[in-house]
């Protein structure tokens, strides 16, 4: 099995969002980048699979600031190989959907038979990458995956989460694409010495063999939602407060005390 893991760096916004001049993007001047949390889980799951069935793991990223360092860390964590993919003509970050053709081409070229990526990212809350990769490659896919079990080598069985505490086991034939929500085990951190060793490695840079998908959705405006004004503080004894809350519920026809 050859697993390709797609990693993405995302803006580390904390709580503060500054809208850039022009009102269509965030102000990226002072924003730090960090590895997308779910991609981190995808990497962990790939390394976990490597340990239990002996897969080869290749980590890839679209090239840009901070990418070499992230890929070196992926090597230190246990990835066998890493590639940064150069795409030209990019103005700012490439959305998950726009990178799909590039990533799909890389999967085909590297001969991967399992592609893992994070189920979503802060810029792609919906999680388009895995399903659109599945469509472009013509491979089956599952999103919101919380564990991957290799079967006999030609299929895998994954646990897919739905809302409301429901999860289902889905069997997919390889090659396949998975959007990972959580790895089967907690993320392991690497030792300083391993990391220093990996920092010496140069990460090969390869040219993209497909063009990024042109964004055909135009951003009209980006805004930060209005801050709420703050709470009305209730005090008094529990009975008074309970009465107050009951009144609130009754006002909104919410009263269904059982």
């Amino acid at each position, binding site marked *: 099995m050859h697993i390709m893991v797609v990693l993405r760096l995302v803006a580390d*916004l904390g*709580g503060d*969002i500054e809208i850039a001049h022009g009102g269509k993007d*965030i102000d990226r001047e002072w924003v730090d980048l960090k590895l997308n*949390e779910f991609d981190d889980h995808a990497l962990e799951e790939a390394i976990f699979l490597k340990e239990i069935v002996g897969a080869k793991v290749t980590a890839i990223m679209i090239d840009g600031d901070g990418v070499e360092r992230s890929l070196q860390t992926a090597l230190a964590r246990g990835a066998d190989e890493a590639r940064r993919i150069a795409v030209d003509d990019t103005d700012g970050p490439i959305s998950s*959907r726009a990178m799909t053709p590039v990533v799909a081409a890389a999967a085909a070229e590297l001969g991967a038979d399992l592609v893992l990526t994070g189920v979503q990212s802060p*810029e792609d*809350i*919906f*999680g*388009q990458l895995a*399903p*659109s990769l*599945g*469509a472009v490659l013509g491979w*089956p*896919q*599952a*999103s*919101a995956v919380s564990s991957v079990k290799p079967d006999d080598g030609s299929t895998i069985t994954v646990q897919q*989460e*739905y*809302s*409301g*505490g*429901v*999860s*289902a*086991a*889905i*069997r*997919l*034939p390889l090659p396949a694409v998975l959007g990972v929500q959580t790895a089967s085990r907690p993320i392991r951190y690497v030792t300083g010495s391993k990391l220093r060793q990996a920092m010496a490695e140069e990460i090969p840079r390869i040219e993209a063999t497909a063009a990024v998908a042109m964004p*055909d*959705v*135009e951003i*009209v*405006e*980006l*805004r*930060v*939602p209005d*801050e*709420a004004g*703050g*709470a*009305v*503080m209730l005090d008094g*004894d529990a*009975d008074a*407060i*309970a009465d107050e*809350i*009951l009144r*609130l519920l009754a006002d*909104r026809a*919410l009263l*269904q*005390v*059982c």
Partner: protein
Amino acid sequence: MTTLLIAEHDNGSLKEPTARALTAALAIGGDVQVLVAGKDCGAAAAEAARLAGVTKVLHAESDALAHQLAEPLAALIVALAAPYDAIVAAATSTGKNTMPRVAALLDVMQVSDVTGVVAADTFERPIYAGNAIETVQSPEAKRVLTVRSSAFKAAEAGGAAAVEPVDAAAAVAAGSAFVGAEIARLERPELTSARIVVSGGRAFQSAENFRKYLEPLADKLGAAIGASRAAVDAGYAPNDYQVGQTGKVVAPDLYIACGISGAIQHLAGMKDAKVIVAINKDPDAPIFQVADYGLVGDVFTLLPEFEKAL
């Protein structure tokens, strides 16, 4: 203009996000038809036909559609797509799994997680983990939209649309197979659709306390129980209780946050609740910034008294 709404259902009945997504589909304007694709899903199709505003229900039956897996469902939607200007689904697990595949197969950009319809081609949606709202315009001839259902009211019943069987031959199983479902039996309302959510944070200190103090209150109010990530990570509450950026997004009529500080990632999951009540011993806790009503005090004394007083 005609819109195709993809129904989410369990074959026997429609799931609530469908009626909410219908409200968004109607806001786009024009006719709205609903696709109910499944296995023995006639009852769900009949239910869709009764929703007010639906002009026609397409009913597709196939073994391959029994579990609404992404590949057969996406293939069917693409085969039916020709006459529609917009294809809409709720941004639920099924929608998330299927619609980006549909968009990529049709080679259009999907507009995800729509929370507002500004015009037939202009939509609002949250971005940056819900900390900003983006208004986007989609000039596509065919639009693929997913709708954050909590942002829209459910459409009412009262319609009487025709149900028309459609050919489901396009829905071929691409190899994925449904092995089995594990359903956590729910004795209380589902978190994402509950009208009241009682949620607990790190303050509870143990799984025993979490249950002991929150369950009686939730039972009395007929509420779902939620949790902060800190409570989940510490093992006080199961994974699927988590509300927030990396958990569930809820928009109940009432959200009671107990011993939760109000981190931005938690707020991303609940700030659209109509009324937020926060209980925290720290008067400066950020949760009070978004709460409508605040109570400063200890959850271990306030909750039992409160539950008794109800």
